[in-house]
């Protein structure tokens, strides 16, 4: 256990150094939150501060955090493969998934910075009044949300590791998530038949919980329901990620195609 933690920390630190040297990651955590906040602010201009906080700030913050965690983590296996380091990591005495977990945590720590950038843009540039009605509940929901993002990123990295076309697929997963999770508009504008899909994705719950914590909670049962939903989908992601990494492990050893999967 202690050794695994050491590996996670080392992998996390190395990942942060590597990620920050990539220009796309710099875009995700610095430029995207600024430019997205500006774009969506102009669309929402004239709306109430509550709407601006709910959709411009939270929408930008959660989507930029989502992009920097999942987008980057999904491409990590592909990048390792391209650099010829995948087989080295794979054959290391520590389990492959433990090393990958460290990488995803590294991306997550940097991803949180994008949330801070969004907050600064909305409050300083647009001078929007920002108050949180339930700061403790907000912190708890964000913390659980981040853990959930880590595991969905692990699941995605496993899923996309099986495909050769990771880069194209990675670029195409942003908009479905933005639409389904109600990042910039409520999911109630979506047709009823598509809404169940939204509840498979953890950003939906994170956004709902964060909005409730900021604006005030009318019904605590509603808050608890969404919090419970977030926990359940996170547990599903954990099982999914363990399963996928197991499949990769078997496939790579059986077919000897680790570098060409």
């Amino acid at each position, binding site marked *: 256990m202690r050794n695994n933690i050491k590996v996670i920390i080392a992998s996390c630190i190395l990942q942060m150094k590597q990620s920050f040297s990539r220009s796309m990651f710099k875009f995700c955590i610095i430029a995207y939150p600024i430019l997205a906040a500006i774009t969506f602010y102009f669309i929402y201009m004239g709306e109430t501060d509550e709407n601006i906080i709910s959709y411009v700030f939270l929408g930008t913050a959660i989507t930029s955090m989502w992009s920097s965690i999942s987008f980057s983590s999904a491409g990590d296996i592909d990048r390792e493969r391209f650099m010829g380091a995948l087989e080295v990591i794979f054959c290391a005495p520590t389990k492959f998934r433990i090393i990958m977990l460290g990488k995803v945590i590294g991306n997550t720590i940097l991803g949180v910075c994008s949330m801070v950038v969004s907050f600064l843009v909305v409050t300083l540039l647009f001078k929007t009044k920002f108050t949180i009605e339930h700061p403790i509940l907000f912190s708890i929901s964000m913390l659980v949300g981040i853990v959930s993002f880590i595991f969905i990123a692990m699941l995605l990295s496993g899923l996309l590791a099986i495909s050769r076309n990771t880069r194209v697929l990675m670029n195409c997963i942003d*908009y479905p998530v933005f639409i389904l999770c109600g990042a910039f508009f409520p999911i109630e504008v979506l047709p009823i038949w598509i809404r169940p899909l939204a509840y498979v994705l953890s950003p939906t719950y994170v956004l709902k919980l964060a909005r409730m914590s900021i604006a005030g909670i009318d019904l605590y049962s509603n808050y608890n329901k969404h919090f419970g939903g977030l926990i359940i989908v996170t547990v599903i992601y954990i099982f999914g990620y363990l399963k996928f990494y197991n499949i990769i492990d078997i496939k790579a050893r059986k077919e000897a195609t680790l570098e060409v999967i």
Partner: protein
Amino acid sequence: MKKFFRISLISFKALLGWLDPKLYVIYKIVDPALQMIFYTLLIQFVYKSQDITPWILGNAFLLCTKNAVFAVGTMLRNDRDQGTLQLIIASPANKLYVYIARVFFNVLDASLTVVIGLVIGVIFFGLDFTGINILLFTLSILTAMVGGMGIGLVLGSIALVMREIHLFLNVANMMLYILTGASFSRERLPSAMYFLSNIIPLTRSIDASRIIMEKGNLSTALQLLGVDLAIGSIYILIGFTLYGYFEYKARVSATLEAY
């Protein structure tokens, strides 16, 4: 002319050589369709009862950025990465001719993407083309795409001397969403940004397409398209001049392959 089309087609095929048809469909049809749905739902929610046709058009036109920014914008840099830049520079062919030929198919491909966006608008959001001047509307799409490629060529030339290429191209892409007024009225922009929005291509083509859809004054639309075509051509020339300048600098300091 035959040579022009040959260069154009080979260049376009080379650009998409890494994709199979299935991925081309995902990248060029599914993703733009989802992007259109996202922005239209957002606009429908924010602007509520207002007519959202102008914003559907704006967002459909901006789908061309996939070609303009990410295909044309990386074209020259890909040449260097693949070792063909030195061959192009050393060849006796007219560089401007080769330069324009290489973006020609991107104009058609980008126009197709815009049409996909418009079809999404018709199917899901009731965009109505009844009784409009289709010829002029097509002209507005083509003018916008020429302007878009002009932006792409300028970005592509600058990308030759940039290290942070992805950061640069993605920022440029998002700036287009802000400056062209695709999703909101340009009057909302601060004066400096409003000025910038007036000196980039695409803006007027989008405005012209809105006038054509409203069955407004067609001569005003034509005038806007003329100005946009002129601005787009200036951008192509700026792109070519920058390319020439960087080529000269690279020859002098022998850094053509350096990055």
